[in-house]
């Protein structure tokens, strides 16, 4: 017998649970304007999240998946991704997508049940939120192939949750990215829960990061409550992807501080003490303490920041609520580039019914 291979999985954390900075922290850890901006984005995400849940509870929004407690993952992912990169989100990615030229009102429009929430900006190459779990890493790999084919210096970010790592498509995407050396970074938001199924029941593998090793490239764990680590490790991975077409997998470890979606009731399966214990590590307080300890964020500045977020959210909600609905026949728009003639009859039927006030 001989050993033919071994592997290691690194874990990255720069700002620890006590808001202490490690010696090997990157320069971002002393870049106060950037850190304050990241802090602002996380606060905005949490407030927006709370608002979305309230809107759903009062019948003004459809089913919505909360981002609470996972702000460092999604804010960090959106922040680290360059404008020219392509972002392939899953449904929990509101806080990342809001940094991709997508307005908060558009995000509300999506969760309010309107396809126009996926228009983003007309020039955006980003994908819309993917609802079928784990299917979107393949689109990221395909887009990364196109980038390489066209010899562009861009990368693709594929986001998914821990449950998605059990899907065949997730592994198929990593497998092909490894073989074809595609400029794609796979991000797993390991928030410990796939609806009711805990991470431990998802796979016997010790880490999710090590799944990349079977695909022939590096996987690493990152403290998903440490925004400095999330941003820095993602930026490093994206740089590698753009310059050397090397894929990488980052498992960002955090905790889902809410039900799976507003349609879920986690009290049926989640031990309360787990969530409470995890709350001690939530990302916003950790960064706040660090900023406060370094005297770069005063109480007054913090209040102004929160007030600004409230204004932005209120404006977005007003915009969302003032958006006029799509006309009924928009149902037939964009099915094909040119609607085949056989659809004319069905379309006309709908238009006539609406005019007569029938449906």
């Amino acid at each position: 017998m001989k050993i033919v291979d071994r592997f290691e999985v690194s874990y990255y954390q720069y700002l620890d649970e006590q808001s202490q900075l490690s010696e090997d922290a990157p320069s971002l850890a002393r870049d106060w304007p950037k850190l304050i901006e990241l802090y602002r984005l996380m606060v905005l995400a949490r407030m927006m999240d709370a608002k979305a849940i309230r809107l759903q509870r009062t019948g003004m929004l459809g089913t919505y998946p909360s981002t609470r407690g996972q702000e460092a993952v999604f804010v960090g992912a959106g922040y680290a991704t360059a404008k020219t990169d392509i972002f392939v989100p899953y449904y929990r990615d509101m806080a990342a997508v809001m940094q991709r030229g997508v307005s908060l009102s558009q995000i509300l429009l999506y969760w309010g049940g309107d396809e126009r929430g996926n228009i983003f900006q007309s020039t955006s190459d980003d994908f819309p939120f993917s609802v079928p779990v784990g299917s979107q890493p393949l689109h990221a790999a395909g887009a990364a192939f196109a980038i390489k084919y066209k010899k562009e210096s861009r990368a693709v970010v594929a986001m998914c949750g821990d449950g998605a790592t059990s899907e065949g498509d997730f592994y198929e995407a990593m497998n092909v990215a490894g073989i074809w050396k595609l400029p794609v970074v796979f991000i797993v938001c390991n928030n410990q829960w796939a609806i009711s199924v805990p991470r431990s029941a998802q796979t016997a593998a010790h880490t999710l990061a090590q799944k990349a090793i079977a695909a022939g490239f590096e996987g690493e764990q990152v403290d998903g409550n440490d925004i400095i680590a999330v941003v820095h490790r993602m930026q490093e991975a994206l740089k590698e992807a753009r310059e050397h077409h090397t894929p990488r997998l980052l498992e960002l470890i955090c905790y889902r501080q809410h039900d799976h979606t507003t349609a879920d009731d986690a009290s049926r399966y989640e031990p309360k003490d787990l969530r409470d214990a995890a709350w001690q590590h939530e990302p916003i307080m950790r960064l706040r303490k660090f900023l406060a300890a370094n005297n770069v964020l005063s109480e007054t500045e913090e209040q102004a920041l929160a007030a600004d977020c409230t204004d932005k959210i209120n404006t977005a909600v007003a915009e969302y609520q003032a958006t006029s609905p799509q006309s009924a026949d928009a149902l037939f728009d964009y099915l094909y580039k040119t609607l085949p003639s056989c659809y004319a009859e069905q379309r006309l039927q709908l238009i006539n019914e609406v005019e007569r006030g029938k449906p």
Partner: protein
Amino acid sequence: MEKKLFMPEITLIEAITLALSFEMQADPSVVVLGEDVGLDGGVFRATNGLLQAFGKERVLDTPLAESMIAGMAIGMATQGLKPVAEFQFMGFIYPAIDQIISHAARLRHRTRGRLSCPLVFRTPFGAGIHAPEHHSESTEALFAHIPGLRVVAPSTPVRAYGLLLAAIRDPDPVIFLEPSRLYRYAKQEVKNDGKALPLDQCFVLSEGDDVTVITWGAMVKEVLSVGSRLKEEGVNIEIIDVATLKPLDMVTILASVEKTGRCVIVHEAALTGGIGADIVAQIAEKALFSLKAPPIRVTGFDTIVPYARMEKYYMPTEKRITTAIHQLMEYA
């Protein structure tokens, strides 16, 4: 003297290769991907020689994962490439169905036109080639049911060439079903002029006043043969090759049925929930009073497609088609 364009007689599979080659030459955004499509030229040789002509950047041997082939093609298509992906047999496209239905078919609709999927998923379909299980499927109705897709099935070398070019140039996803039983059945002159044939429209192969026979794919062969034999009896059938199964050109079909008053739909796929059912329903809705006789469907039975030895019992035969037509001719 007029210079005549050299037109060799080629098979249906060679026409597929010719169309792929023409379009790859004309459009650098066209890439071919699939299992064994490279050096091997595909299990049926549809991509024969493409690797040598266009290189491994454009002719991609993929890992063995069908969902990956579809999902990758979707990602490529959104970024300006025109992927033409091969699935080795229709029975092996099923792992990719989630990608096809949940994403390829609806990305344009979902993003209100911002992203789209101009791609082609090619696959051989149909029984009668004595292959193992899962190599003989005709499940076109699964795909024809899905809004946002086009489903196309050629039945001759000329139509394979022209329709594949049209499929590649189409701005939306196309499921391109190639009748494996006809891959090498007959040769035909195919002009390599890069001219596409129209999608979304049936082809009337022969005109007749007595019975309309509506079919597609490999069954066109049996129907044509029945047609020429019945002519000797004095029965003239109008043969329609549907060619594009989704969206369906009911204008051509209804015009013919209104003329003949009798119709048979022939397909290899199982009876229940087949495309024939939809055609009959539309005829009933729109041309009932033109009918002299109840429409008849001659199809595969509602069974699993059998292994090679029982294929002959499953497939619609010329005899079954002829019997159906004779039955209809009893109605004046």
